[in-house]
């Protein structure tokens, strides 16, 4: 069996063992429903929720909060990061505050955001945007600062303007770091959305988990978790794909060079 096939088959074997153990616990050792739901029960809720549409409204709510927040938070992170990396003055004004904000757990702000932006979508978007902002912001600064000095000297020797140096060299050189930030932000954005929904909301996968908790309905909780995991996996893979496509010189560095 070649390595490629193994990387596809072996995870399924692990999954088989996990589900087998799960079945064993519920069917043979009769672990009660309110502690561990039966796999069949979770499966049923998932079919009802994801296929027949009982969860669609909630997925829509979580997805739109996550996406909108992610896009706005990451855009702001890149723009402000670039500004801060390029301008010493700007940095002196803002950096101490940015650092203190960064060390604060942003999710603790959720109640405040609910008061400011209401119970609806807006407060979740702001929450997600806030948690996405920092990794992208910091990575943009680090990436731009780590631009190899010889490349900048080269550009300057050809009379390049500061804007040219920034656009042609610094920004491109920082892309690897920026994408690493975007990757982290995917996972954080889901955390932000779910926390926002936990604190106060009337829809969303996080909201569903909370309602299910009230009913000790573990099957629904599990089904919602599967949905959240799926969103996270798809998002991460999309960003990874974009990374490999856009920063192509980074990913195939190991490709052979032509020798003379």
């Amino acid at each position, binding site marked *: 069996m070649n390595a490629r096939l193994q990387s596809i088959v072996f995870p399924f074997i692990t999954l088989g063992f996990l589900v087998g153990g799960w079945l064993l616990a519920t069917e043979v050792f009769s672990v009660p429903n309110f502690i561990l739901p039966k796999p069949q029960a979770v499966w049923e809720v998932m079919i009802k929720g994801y296929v027949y549409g009982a969860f669609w409204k909630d997925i829509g709510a979580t997805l739109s909060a996550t996406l909108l927040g992610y896009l706005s938070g990451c855009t702001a992170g890149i723009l402000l990061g670039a500004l801060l990396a390029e301008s010493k003055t700007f940095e002196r004004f803002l950096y101490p505050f940015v650092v203190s904000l960064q060390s604060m757990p942003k999710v603790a702000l959720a109640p405040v955001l609910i008061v400011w932006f209401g119970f609806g979508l807006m407060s979740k978007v702001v929450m997600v945007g806030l948690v996405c902002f920092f990794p992208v912001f910091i990575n943009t600064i680090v990436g731009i600062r780590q631009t190899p000095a*010889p*490349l900048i*000297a*080269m*550009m*300057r*020797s*050809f*009379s*390049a*303007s500061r804007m*040219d140096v920034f656009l*042609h*060299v610094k920004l*491109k050189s920082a892309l690897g770091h920026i994408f690493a930030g975007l990757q982290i932000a995917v996972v954080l954005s889901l955390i932000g959305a779910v926390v926002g929904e936990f604190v106060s909301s009337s829809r969303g996968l996080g909201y569903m988990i909370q309602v299910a908790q009230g009913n000790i309905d573990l099957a629904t909780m599990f089904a919602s978790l599967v949905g959240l995991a799926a969103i996270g996996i798809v998002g991460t893979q999309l960003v990874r794909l974009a990374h490999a496509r856009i920063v*192509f*010189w980074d990913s*195939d*560095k190991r*490709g052979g*060079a*032509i*020798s*003379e």
Partner: protein
Amino acid sequence: MAVYYTALAAEGKGARRGQPMLKTDRLTVTYASSRGPVKAVDDFSLEITPGEFVSVLGPSGCGKSTVLSVAAGLLGASSGSVAVAGSPVTAPRREVGVVFQQANLLPWKNVLENVLLPIVAMRLPVEEYRERAEQLLDFVGLSRFRQHYPHELSGGMQQRVGIVRALIHDPKLLLMDEPFAALDAMTRERMALELQRIWSGTDKTVLFITHSIPEAVLLSDRVVVMSPSPGRIIEEFECDLPRPRNAETMALPRFGEYCNYLRKIFDQFEGKA
């Protein structure tokens, strides 16, 4: 016999009249370091006439690259002055092309785009230079690779792209900062011969920084020797081997004599220190 070369140098300079392409006058560069100011270049005066190929030869860390940085307008002089074609250098200039120790190609641009980068930076019409870029790439044997990305090329090929990039805007003065130092010995020798071939077809003035004695002798009209820090000129040497020079030049007895003469200067200096 070696003593006469310096006298010859002075004579040769007088014969070629007109404004020097590069002139440094009592150039001194001092760096601030944690242990106080360090003098990298001291009282460095040099004139290069148009079309001349001059090497600055010195041990590593003698400040020879600093001279080039000042001439390129990338670094300010602490005292003294540098002028290109008669006007003082205060910022990078368009009549100058620089080749660096590393090829310094942008990894996200292909060979042709890298070559045309100075044109973009100088806001010149890119389309008008495309043909020149193709011709230059063809001249260094890289036209097949114009769509390739730098990481797909060997070190020697990358540095050839670097040289073509420095020539794209047709500069009058080429500044080369140990351009072959990062290459292996075999490639290095081949690149020196290649540079010799490129240069002899042009009217370019070259300031070539190196720590390789044979490289300096093979390429130069004149070799300027620098002492270790603070870098100052300790010898100027006219190198009158017949042109065009090629692999056979290195087999000439005079080539060996010149190399030995320069090596002795370094040995003498080591003895004194």
